[in-house]
């Protein structure tokens, strides 16, 4: 244990203490750790709350999208992949063996004004010539979700694999129905919640009360209701409860990097989608305001730990440590 303790002290505790100490520096231009002051924190909270809000909303929406794509994929591979499970799993995560930056830049090409998505739509006259997707919240969420999907697939797959198939066989006898009406109600509420998050985030954190937004919310609620209503009882009563630790781990492994991400916002977004990570990067590398960067980093760390603590406490997710 002593080597592990030393490792933790050297590579975790010491740098963390240094960053937190720097965040309280009274050096006017934040270049060194001198004196004690809350100035960096008050400046950070005063000027960069919108960026923190971007990190929370974009991070949460991207995590949600990653779950909506990754969990069904992991479930399908685990329960229906048969002998090709390993191959299917590899194919699902193989794109992520390439460089992170290359994957982000590929989204620039994909969503570009004349790219493979918009180019044909513009040629067919389905969207206007000036219609853009790049440089919007949508492109940031799309790019970030894509990066997070393997962090959902892998722990979810591991969790689904641990479910005893004999229990599933027994459940197939006991529970032959679907969630039905109750599921539809809950699904519509969840769908509406996701829809509201999506509309709020994609409209640049504004309360969009337009007919388009209303239609989008209705669509989310209906899709949520349909999907939930069709969930089988055996999945609901057996598979899902047994998979909670893995899904909790997936949530932790996606939301934390999503909160701190800045590359997607820098390359796919605009000035209004800048996340707290972008500000930290600029403060550290351009402004050389180390104290300010340290204060923002410490703030982000505190918020992440608070959310994580609440999440794990609510889900009693201590077993998640087995899977993380």
């Amino acid at each position, binding site marked *: *244990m*002593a080597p592990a*303790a*030393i490792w*933790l*002290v*050297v590579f975790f*505790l*010491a740098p963390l203490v240094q960053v937190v100490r720097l965040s309280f520096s009274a050096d*006017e*231009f934040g*270049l060194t750790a001198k004196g004690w002051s809350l100035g960096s924190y008050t400046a950070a909270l005063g*000027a*960069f709350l*919108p*960026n923190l809000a*971007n990190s929370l909303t974009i991070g949460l929406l991207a995590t949600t999208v990653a779950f909506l794509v990754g969990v069904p994929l992991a479930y399908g591979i685990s329960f229906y992949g048969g002998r090709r499970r390993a191959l299917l799993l590899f194919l699902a995560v193989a794109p992520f063996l390439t460089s992170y930056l290359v994957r982000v*830049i590929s989204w*620039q*090409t994909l969503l*570009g*004004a*004349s*790219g493979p998505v918009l180019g044909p739509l513009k040629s067919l006259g389905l969207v206007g010539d000036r219609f*853009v997707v*790049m*440089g919007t919240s949508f492109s940031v969420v799309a790019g970030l979700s894509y990066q997070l999907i393997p962090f959902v697939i892998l722990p979810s797959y591991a969790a689904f694999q641990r479910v005893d198939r004999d229990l599933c066989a027994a459940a197939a006898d006991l529970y032959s129905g679907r969630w039905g009406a109750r599921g539809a109600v809950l699904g519509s509420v969840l769908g509406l919640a996701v829809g509201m998050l999506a509309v709020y985030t994609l409209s640049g954190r504004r309360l969009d009360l337009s007919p388009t937004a209303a239609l989008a919310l209705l669509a989310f609620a209906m899709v949520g209701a349909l999907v939930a209503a069709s969930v089988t009882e055996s999945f609901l009563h057996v598979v899902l409860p047994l998979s909670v630790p893995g899904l909790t781990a997936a949530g932790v492994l996606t939301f934390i990097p999503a909160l701190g991400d800045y590359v997607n*916002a*820098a*390359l796919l*977004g*605009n*000035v*209004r*989608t*800048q996340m707290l990570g*972008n*500000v930290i990067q*600029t*403060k*550290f*590398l*351009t*402004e*050389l*305001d180390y104290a300010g960067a340290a204060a923002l980093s410490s703030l982000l760390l505190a918020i992440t730990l608070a959310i994580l603590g609440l999440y794990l406490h609510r889900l009693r997710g201590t077993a998640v440590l087995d899977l993380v």
Partner: protein
Amino acid sequence: MSTFNQPRSRRTFLRQMGLGAAALGVGVSVAGCSSKGSTTAKTGGLGASSPVTGTVRWAANSGEIDPKDVKRFEAAAGVTLDYREVIADADQFFASVKPQLTAGLSIGYDLICLSSQYVSVYAEHDWLIKPDSSALPNVTKNLLPQLSSVAHRDIAIPYDYAPLGLAYSKKDFPSGLHSWGDLLSKAAHGKVGLYSTPIPNVAAWGLYLKSQGKIDHAPAEMTIEEALEVVAFLKPYIRSGQLLTTQGENAVQKLASGDLFAAVAPPVNVAEVDPVTVGFAVPTEGAPAYVDRLAIPKGAANPRAAEALIDWWFQPENAASFCKYTLQYPYARGVKDVLAKTDPKLADNPIIFPGEDVLNRLFPYPPPWSDNERASLSRAWTAVISG
């Protein structure tokens, strides 16, 4: 039961963490006291009579030189060139080496490419070794006259030289771009890419504001108050999305793909794409011109080899190879004559060899300002681009 198999309590673990932290603190203190001199940056020691051997480690900008020139230099000088394209962004490179240079430590390179905006910072903090002029005969003979008078020319050799003008889509601006003000039109909303760092933007738009009578000085004499005024001018255009800041180095590729209509870029980026689709203009108000340098940082292990490398680049055929590969303006005499024989089309390219009227509209970057002034400008810029 062995030491590793004994059950551990929480108290034991925390005790070990504490001992580890204490050991770390003692170790760091002792290391700090005892090794202060062992990696301190060396000073001086240069001389034309010292033999040139060993390896020269060069921190360069991305795409700085033709890889073939590495072999040519090694064959000519008998020195190994460890060439590393580690400078993707001048601000980030400066941020990465500043702590070591401030502490008097070596940064691990013998030669670095120094961005215009940082030359005075390095010079005034005494972070550079002055090359021996007797070891630079080709520099003395061939450096262009207009580059001989730049500040700190004796300690940081002028080298990579080009304007930051306007790259534009010919389809969207069929009659070309003539003024910085053309970028503020409604037709260009959301389709104009600025440079990612503040100094070039302040220099460029400072020229526009000077032409409008809103500030008094050209970039090289600009006061910090005028620079902040330029940032304040740009703020509403950036916030409204008229001008885009987060474009990265592939802005010109976005011009070709239609994501942008115009971008602030050097001619080298434009010369890489189809001239039928993308054009380049130096606005009537003028454009800032960067003059990057070759400099030997304090603590360089092989400064003599670095001098040899600098001087090698000022032989006309080598300068021509640089110009041909990077499509930057020539920095040495004789380049056009060499290219006229090896690449006549390039020798006649007005983007690389502009006329006097264009050269007269190029202005050096802003002055270095103090550390605090630069920090206040960066802070103002961060506040604008962070939304």
